[in-house]
């Protein structure tokens, strides 16, 4: 069976993926948020496993993460909440989290559990490619869990090619070196970077993340990639509008 991520990437059109922090605003919102996202037409979901020290994230995701931990979210809780999710949700589900909680759970146990639940892949920003290849790749393969890697503006062509060769599903293209949260538009520097990558003709599709916040930036981002991920802006919208406003937010991006 083809991985849901690959299948989704093969579809026509541009993909909208949403990141949210599990356990935020309330511990038990996780499943509800996933349902609402699927309903409103989102193509893919990154479920954030909160970490105490999210050093690649801006203040919005930091704050939601520490709230979520305070709310009682942790790896076991998340897996319990997601049990049975595949009865109702068909779009790709990805867990995005820092390496330490996964390491503590046990990488193999973690992958096995993901497989049981129907999680399609992981994004672990602080797990380096080489270390993954050497120590964990076979485990991921065994449990058919995709591992998506990041590229960033300073990533060398050589390294991008390597990532292209090892990434499952898609490459997470970090839009800028700024993690201070979402901005309103892309700079000319960023556009140059997008074009440079475009010209590399990678085999793996790209999804743009960081700094995608609204219709305008979404459309700019997907000019150079198969899709885009919205994180901070989605969480800010949750803060102001609550779960009820998810549909309206997604529609504001998509039309």
């Amino acid at each position, binding site marked *: 069976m083809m991985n849901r991520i690959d299948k989704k990437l093969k579809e026509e059109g541009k993909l909208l993926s949403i990141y949210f922090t599990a356990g935020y605003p309330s511990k038990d919102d996780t499943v509800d948020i996933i349902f609402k996202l699927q309903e409103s037409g989102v193509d893919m979901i990154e479920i954030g496993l909160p970490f105490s*020290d999210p050093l690649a994230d801006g203040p919005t995701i930091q704050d939601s993460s520490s709230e979520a931990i305070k709310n009682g979210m942790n*790896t076991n809780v998340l897996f319990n909440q997601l049990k049975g999710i595949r009865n109702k949700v068909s779009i790709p589900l990805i867990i995005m989290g820092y390496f330490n*909680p996964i390491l*503590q759970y046990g990488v193999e146990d973690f992958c096995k559990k993901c497989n049981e639940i129907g999680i399609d892949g992981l994004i672990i920003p*602080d797990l380096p490619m080489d270390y993954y290849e050497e120590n964990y790749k076979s485990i991921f393969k065994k449990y058919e869990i995709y591992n998506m890697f990041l590229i*960033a503006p300073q990533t060398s062509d050589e390294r991008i090619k390597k990532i292209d060769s090892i990434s499952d599903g898609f490459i997470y293209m970090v839009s800028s*070196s700024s993690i201070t949260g979402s901005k309103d538009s892309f700079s000319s520097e960023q556009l140059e970077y997008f074009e440079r990558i475009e010209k590399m003709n990678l085999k793996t599709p790209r999804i743009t993340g960081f700094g995608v916040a609204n219709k305008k930036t979404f459309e700019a981002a997907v000019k150079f990639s198969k899709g885009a991920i919205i994180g901070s802006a989605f969480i800010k919208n949750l803060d102001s509008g609550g779960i009820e406003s998810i549909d309206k937010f997604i529609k504001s991006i998509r039309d």
Partner: protein
Amino acid sequence: MKYTVDKKGFYGNYGGAFVPEMLFPNLDELEKNYNKIIGDKDFQNDYNNLLKDYVGRPTPLYFAERISEKYKCKIYLKREDLCHTGAHKINNTIGQILLAKRLGKKRIIAETGAGQHGVATATVCALAGIECVIYMGAVDIKRQAPNVARMKMLGASVVSAESGSKTLKDATNEAIRDWINNPVTTHYIIGSVVGPHPYPDMVAKFQSVISTEIRSQLLEKEGTESPNYLIANIGGGSNAAGLYYNYLEDHNVKIISVEAAGKGVESGKSAATSVLGKIGIIHGSKTLLMQTNDGQITEPYSISAGLDYPGVGPLHAHLLETKRAEFMSITDDDAMLAGLEISKLEGIIPAIETAHAFAAFNYLDFKSDDIIVVNFSGRGDKDLNTYIDYFNL
């Protein structure tokens, strides 16, 4: 047994560079260049001249008669407190600023706990005429006010880290975020043997001057290069790494690493990583750290801002695992009393970090001809308010 870093950046099971891709180019640049630059004659020349004329090295190896008498052994103090800015931290920042200049960097960032590393960084930035931003936890900004003032006098911006426990760990997160945001122009001067490879090795190399000097000083004083014991406090472990560096293969030299037990190892308010820590990832390094069962990093506690860190550098995790070093945990109370005792007996007010190492003497038995070298990592000026409040002076 090998105690140096391997090609992949590991000390045995510990180390590596677990960082987001955005930082890979920075670390790669460092990794590829640091040994070449440090080995360069011109660099060595600049580095050694600054250590001598600016930092005031070699620092003395002082035979402390009165505490030797009290503890019935021969205690030597390696006087890093006499370094410019008052602690060993500057050995590293001098090295890194010279490196940063050679890498063409225009801006420096650093994290700081006790403020000593922040001051040492602000100092070398002033010297080099380079912009400097220091991240410091909001709690530490309060308890180490004199050092905050010093950084400002030196022209640095001090940015308060408001997340988590608002101490060193969180300041480090903020510094890493800054580096991710400014990957090309900026060099990040990490202040201890922590963080992703090549930092632990690089910082240890810059601090190794401590034990290089001791070998020849001890030879002059005792006719042997090797003491029976080395004792150092461990926050991240840079002063300890510097003290041990040239003795790691010398198995006759016993090593005692002293951590902060805070209000007690089992009190829930401590920074005793060697007891409470499990293997994990912190600040890009695989090492021992205090964490919950599901891998959230625990908020550490120590009265000493410089030891208030939930991990140790990977070298130290390795030394613990291989039993090359023995670890001890010292409470706030023991450390404070030791600080006062050293002040009154030797006329040297230690940093509270340093005081932890002296408190260990109460729990150790030495032979009367044992030679012990304690790393006197810093002076207590930055801690006067804490001492005053604690002892009601």
